[in-house]
C-alpha cells in the first residue's frame, strides 16, 4: 500500500514537472520526484543509494536548477512544442503498453542471501567504475569552466578585435618587427558616467 502511494506520487510529480508552465515549479516538482524515488530505494533495501539520491538528486541538483534559472530566466517557451500533444501522448502510451506487455507480471523477489558488503563490491569488484566516475567528474568540471568562462571585455562591447587578438601581434607586424596598431578606440565616457565614477 505504501509502495502504491509512493509510486503514484512520484509519477504525478514527474508529470507535473513536465507540464508546469514555470521553470522554477518544474525544478521543485523534480525535487519531489527525487525525494519519493529515494524513499522507494530505501524500501527496496538500497539504503546507501537512497541517501546519495536524496542528497544529490533532491539537494544539489535542485540548487543547481534554481541557480541556472535565476541566471537564465524563464523564456516563456513552455507553450511551444516539437510534436502535437496528442501524438506525443499516443507514442508514450504505446511505449508503456509494450513495456508492460513484455515485463509484467513480476514475481516477488527472493529473500536476500548473504553477499559481499557494498563497500567491498564498489571498491573491489567495481574499481574501474570508480575510476570512470573520477574521470567523469573531472571532465564535467572542465566542461563547466570552459562553458561559463567570461569573454574578453572588449568583445562584449562589440568591438572589431577581441582582447586576445589585441595582445597578440599580427603576422605582418611580427614579420617586420613593428608593433601592432591598436584597432580599438575606447569611447569617451559620458558626463553621467563621469559623475557615477566620482560618486
Amino acid at each position, binding site marked *: 500500500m505504501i509502495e502504491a502511494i509512493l509510486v503514484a506520487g512520484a509519477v504525478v510529480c514527474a508529470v507535473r514537472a513536465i507540464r508546469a508552465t514555470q521553470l522554477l515549479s518544474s525544478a521543485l516538482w523534480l525535487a519531489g520526484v527525487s525525494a519519493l524515488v529515494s524513499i522507494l530505494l530505501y524500501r527496496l533495501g538500497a539504503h*546507501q543509494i537512497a541517501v546519495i539520491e536524496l542528497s544529490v538528486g533532491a539537494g544539489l541538483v535542485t540548487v543547481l536548477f534554481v541557480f541556472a534559472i535565476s541566471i537564465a530566466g524563464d523564456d516563456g517557451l513552455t507553450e511551444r512544442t516539437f510534436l502535437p500533444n496528442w501524438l506525443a501522448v499516443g507514442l508514450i502510451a504505446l511505449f508503456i503498453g509494450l513495456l508492460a506487455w513484455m515485463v509484467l507480471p513480476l514475481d516477488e523477489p527472493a529473500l536476500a542471501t548473504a553477499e559481499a558488503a557494498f563497500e567491498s563490491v564498489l571498491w573491489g569488484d567495481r574499481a574501474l567504475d570508480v575510476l570512470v566516475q573520477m574521470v567523469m567528474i573531472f571532465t564535467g568540471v572542465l566542461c*563547466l569552466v570552459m*562553458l561559463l568562462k567570461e569573454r574578453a571585455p572588449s568583445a562584449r562591447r562589440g568591438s572589431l578585435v577581441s582582447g586576445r587578438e589585441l595582445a597578440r601581434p599580427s603576422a605582418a607586424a611580427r614579420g617586420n618587427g613593428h608593433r601592432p596598431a591598436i584597432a580599438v578606440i575606447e569611447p569617451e565616457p559620458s558626463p553621467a558616467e563621469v559623475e557615477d565614477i566620482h560618486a
Partner: protein
Amino acid sequence: MNAMTMIALAVMGLVGAGLYGLLITRNLIKVVIALQILVKGALLALVAAGQASEQVNLGQSLAVTVIVADTIVAVVGLGLAVQAKRLLGTLDVKALSNLRG
C-alpha cells in the same frame, strides 16, 4: 499486486514522463529536467533488477555510477543553457541549430 510490480509501474511511469518531456519541450532547461526524470526511472530499474537477482549491492554500485553521470549531465546541460541564453538570448533548442556546419 506485489512490490516488484509496483516498482515496474514506477519505472514505466518515470521513463514515460521523461520521454514525453523530451518529445514536447523546446526549452533547454526543461530538456535537462526531462532527462533527470528519465534517469531516475533507470536508476530505480537498476536497483530493482539487483534485488530481483539477489545482488542488491551490485545494483547499488552501478546506481552510484548512474547518479554521478546524471549529475554531470545536469551540470553541463545547465551550463550550456546559461551560455546559450547569454549568446543567443533564448533557451529555445531550435536556436542551437545554428551550430550546424
